């Protein structure tokens, strides 16, 4: 095998071993670099959404310059798809700004539409959600049909281009972690159909309908995940899905237990049973729910965490899941190299023993000001030395 292939294989082995809660040769470093990477490559977020080549180039530059074992995923969004359909949801605030979702475009689903949604969620998406989100899909045939087809073509091309980017990264010895993304049905309904305000109102005003909708939508989430699993090329390792979580840290435990946990457990158990790794991004502070997380299938799910006491997390979760992240991005932007390294040392001292920890930032880096490159390089280099298991 060539040296590049060797490096590629070594990195894969190191990461997947750690995910399985086996101790590898050292603590792996995951590059959790999102649209920050566009700017690192000399582009704007906006530009890379229209030209996947630029996303690819930026990722190759990161792979080349930044010491790490794996990049987490291609960061570009399919601008062409959104343009073909006349999307109203994304805000390109200025050419140099990052894309962010806005609650303004929620209320896609009206107060009285829960029963219709739950009866046939897929039909509801096609007949109600899509025409409300996309101007072209609100038009009559044949305008609508052609726009839909054009968007589908672009969607397919986008998938192929992502695959090509992963291929060129592999040729440079750099693996990529995620094969796809899913969302929890409650987060999905809240963030994209009812708005957060609407969802918190629904908990109080129509609890039974909301619960039913979450249950009805769960099989679609699972199917979306499996679809992406099938669309990814064959691999000796399990496929990996990202599951960014949103609402739980805003809910009291009783509401979490009623609305969020049952579907969450169902989804995690389903994918575990099919040997697909799901890695939730546990945004915020999940310490209220560590006991819940202990119920997840051991060694078959992982967790990317933002906040948490490393000692407590290791103690409570080390037998259940590999822990990822926790390194504060703000330190990478506002701290000195020495401060960054000191923090990394602290994390490794608490989380690395016995394996089961992958070093990464506490959240995806999205804006150019989210982290200084020289700090990232210094701290990653440190982890790759200090994290060697003797």
């Amino acid at each position, binding site marked *: 095998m060539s040296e590049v292939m060797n490096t590629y294989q070594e990195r894969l082995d190191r990461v997947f071993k750690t995910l399985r809660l086996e101790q590898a040769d050292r603590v792996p470093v995951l590059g959790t670099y999102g649209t920050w990477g566009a700017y690192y490559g000399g582009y704007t977020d906006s530009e890379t959404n229209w030209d996947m080549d630029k996303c690819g180039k930026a990722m190759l530059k990161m792979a080349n310059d930044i010491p790490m074992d794996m990049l987490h995923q291609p960061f570009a969004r399919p601008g062409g798809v959104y343009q073909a359909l006349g999307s109203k949801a994304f805000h390109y605030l200025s050419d140099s*700004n990052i894309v962010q979702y806005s*609650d303004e475009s929620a209320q896609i689903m009206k107060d009285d539409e829960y029963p219709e949604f739950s009866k046939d969620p897929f039909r509801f998406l096609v007949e109600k959600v899509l025409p409300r989100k996309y101007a072209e899909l609100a038009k009559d045939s044949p305008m609508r049909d052609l726009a839909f087809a054009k968007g589908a073509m672009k969607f397919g091309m986008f998938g192929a281009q992502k695959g090509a980017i992963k291929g060129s990264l592999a040729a440079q010895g750099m693996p990529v972690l995620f094969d796809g993304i899913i969302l929890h049905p409650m987060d999905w309904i809240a963030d994209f159909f009812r708005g957060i305000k609407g969802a918190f*109102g629904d908990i*109080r005003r129509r609890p039974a309908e909301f619960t039913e909708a979450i249950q009805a939508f769960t099989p679609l989430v699972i199917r979306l995940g499996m679809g992406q699993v099938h669309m990814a090329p064959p691999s000796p390792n399990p496929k990996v899905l990202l599951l960014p979580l949103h609402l739980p*840290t805003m*809910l*009291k435990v009783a509401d979490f237990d009623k609305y969020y946990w049952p579907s969450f457990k169902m989804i995690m158990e389903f994918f575990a049973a099919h040997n697909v790794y799901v890695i939730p991004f546990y945004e915020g502070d999940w310490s209220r729910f560590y006991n819940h997380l202990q119920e997840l299938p051991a060694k078959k799910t992982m967790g990317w965490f933002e906040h948490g006491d490393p000692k407590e997390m290791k103690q409570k979760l080390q037998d259940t899941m590999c822990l990822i992240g926790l390194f504060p991005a*703000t330190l990478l932007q506002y701290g000195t190299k020495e401060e960054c390294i000191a923090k990394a040392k602290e994390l490794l001292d608490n989380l690395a023993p016995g394996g089961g920890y992958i070093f990464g930032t506490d959240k995806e880096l999205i804006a150019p000001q989210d982290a200084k490159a020289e700090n990232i390089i210094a701290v990653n280099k440190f982890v790759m030395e200090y994290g060697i298991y003797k």
Partner: protein
Amino acid sequence: MVDLKVLTQAMSDLDEDVLNKAIDEVLSKDDNAAAQEVVKACQQGMTLVGERYDSGEYFIGDLVFAGEVLQSVMDKLKPALSAGSSAKGGKIVLATVFGDLHDIGKNIFRSMVEAANFEVIDLGINVPVSQIVDKVKEVNPDIVGLSGVLTLALDSMKETVDALNEAGFRSSVKVIIGGVPVNEVVCKSIGADAFSTNAAEGVKICQGWVG
């Protein structure tokens, strides 16, 4: 006659049905004084909501709903309230800074600080530095509140504070920053007077400044 204690408790319990009944009664009688009392009772209830959040009973979801309920009460009673009827505490210019679209935290803070009798001029989301400075010039507030969730908001907060300095207004206002990424270190480097990641705490800080 509407029992105000019951209303305060209903607001605290987030019981819309009780509140709606009381509002209907007040509107049917066209009683301005009663409308005033109802608003005050709800604002007191909102303070209790803040305490229940502090104690860990309520979470953000409950605060957001509380804000909605209070807003709905105010909107329904508006026709029965005379202009400038409630006494005002301090004045706050509030904004989610440039580049950031998030407003849940800001809106929770606004509900709570209005319940504490402050007058709030809410500039909304993604507010350019110049717009904040112009508004400060125009209304002469006691406090400027800057909110943001994304890390990039910190840069906009700093630019806003610097601009207030340059315009000569920095020393005549107190600046409080709020949101996910704020902390002591960041507060110092931005040049704000205080920071908070907790709306109820933010309200207390503001009360301390004008009290």
